[in-house]
């Protein structure tokens, strides 16, 4: 029992450290890739190819004055960024990150908590994470903040239905909510990947995943051109950094979910071992998010609602219906 607790604590700390470091590195990669796609150079001055830009940004974020604007609701203003960052990492607790491996004769399962409802827990926690932007926008006495949090509520109520319904069809096929069961279901190689049998669900999940992490076609919450910075207008320094880390951790979580549920998870792929396979898949989804950001314009809030409620939700329901009929037949 003690060993279990110690192992869980170590895993939790490792995941926290690795994912938040990756989130920091993600900002550098995002700037570089966007620069490449827009024929610019991106950060170049700090270190070779600007690699040390993260360190410079980190020093700047940490040493900035911790500032609470007048007229803001102090407690809620301080709690809001913590909600975003914390829920992003709590969601990762139920995600199996790598296949089992043996270290110093001990078999390590790289999942903090193997619940039998893993996928539902991850979705629920990422949903709770949107309380961060919502409260942040409402806690400040700022019109842009209020607009940002109103948009958060709209976005949440729109995409949440699509996420749930799109995942329901694969869940029906696998017959379990555990992400490890999803992985073992697709153990037979590329031909067994769920994406071949559920292409519609895959696309729907990706679209709602973009909305969930508020990535570009749907980044209504903090769209600079329209609402300054939305909910984050009055935030600076480390509190703003926490929103950012939460968003990048959520991007990584969505990448893990998509590859575990649809793309075969951490099963070995041809000559690539399983651990590397899932990292490559997650890296691909991360790149896809940046690619879409460079390629697509923003959409308006009413367009998002139109898309989610009038197009994606009926599609998801029809998909579930067809899946059910095929399974019964």
């Amino acid at each position, binding site marked *: 029992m003690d060993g279990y607790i110690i192992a869980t604590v170590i895993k939790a700390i490792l995941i926290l450290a690795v994912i938040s470091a990756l989130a920091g590195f993600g900002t550098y990669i995002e700037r570089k890739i966007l620069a490449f796609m827009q024929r610019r150079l991106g950060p170049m001055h700090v270190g070779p190819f600007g690699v040390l830009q993260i360190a410079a940004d980190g020093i700047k974020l940490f040493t900035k004055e911790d500032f609470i604007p007048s*007229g*803001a*609701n102090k*407690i*809620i203003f301080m*709690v809001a960024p913590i909600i975003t960052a914390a829920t992003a990492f709590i969601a990762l607790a139920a995600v199996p990150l790598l296949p089992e491996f043996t270290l110093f004769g001990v078999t390590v399962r790289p999942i903090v908590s193997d*619940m*039998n*409802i893993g996928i*539902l*827990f991850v*979705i*629920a*926690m990422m*949903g*709770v994470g*949107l*309380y961060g932007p*919502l*409260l942040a926008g*409402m*806690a*400040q*006495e700022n019109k842009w903040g*209020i607009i940002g*949090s*109103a948009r958060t*509520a*709209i976005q*949440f*109520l729109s995409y*949440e239905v699509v996420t*749930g319904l799109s995942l329901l069809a694969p869940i029906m096929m696998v017959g*379990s*909510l555990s992400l490890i069961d999803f992985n073992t279901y697709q153990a037979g190689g590329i031909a067994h990947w769920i994406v071949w049998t559920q292409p519609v669900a895959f696309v729907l999940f990706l679209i709602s995943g973009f909305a969930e992490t508020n990535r570009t076609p749907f980044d209504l919450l903090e769209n600079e051109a329209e609402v300054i910075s939305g909910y984050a207008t009055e935030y600076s320094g480390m509190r703003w950094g926490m929103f950012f880390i939460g968003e990048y951790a959520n991007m990584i979580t969505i990448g893990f979910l998509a590859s575990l549920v649809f793309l075969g998870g951490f099963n070995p792929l041809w000559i690539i071992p399983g651990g590397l396979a899932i990292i490559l898949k997650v890296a691909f989804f991360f790149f896809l998010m940046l690619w879409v950001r460079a390629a697509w314009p923003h959409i*308006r809030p*009413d367009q998002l*609602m*139109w898309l989610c409620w009038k197009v994606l939700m009926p599609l998801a329901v029809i998909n579930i219906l067809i899946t059910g009929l095929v399974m019964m037949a």
Partner: protein
Amino acid sequence: MEAIAFYIFAILITGLFLVTVFSRNILYSMSSLAAGMVLISGLFFIIRADFLGAVQLVVYSGAIMALYAFGMMFFDATRDVKEKNTSKYLVFLLSGFSAVALVVIFSAPAIGKHIEVEPIAKGLGHLDNVHAIGAVLFTKYLIPFEVAAVMLLVAMIAGIVLASKRMDESLSEVYVGTDPETEKKEQK
């Protein structure tokens, strides 16, 4: 271990809901309501009802998000709300109800000793949580389940009917104003 966890959760939940009731600030009330609802899922996780715990998270986080939207429309979140409640009868009734509820709560354990509960999930021990809930819902409690589904359908249709005025137009067109042709007519 579980008792400690239960008492921590129970105290936190009660405290948060007290803040919900007593706070004059709309932001504190709603935030503590949301936090309390999230913590209630902890109680489900303690008794190993994982599925219900996750459903609690999903359902209530969405529901309270809608409440926030209304709160945003009706109140200024950075100011205190002045409550106006002058009806003595209402206070009298509500305090009476609370007193009765308290008596019931404290006498419940004494009455509960004599009630024999037949476990719902009898013979379902070999199934895990999610499958057991499914089995019970679609066999023993099928009719209440269906009735609940019909009620939700009724509510949904009512909502669509209420909101369906001018549904075929884009939202931005509805709020920006009338279209140029009718404007010209009005000018004439």
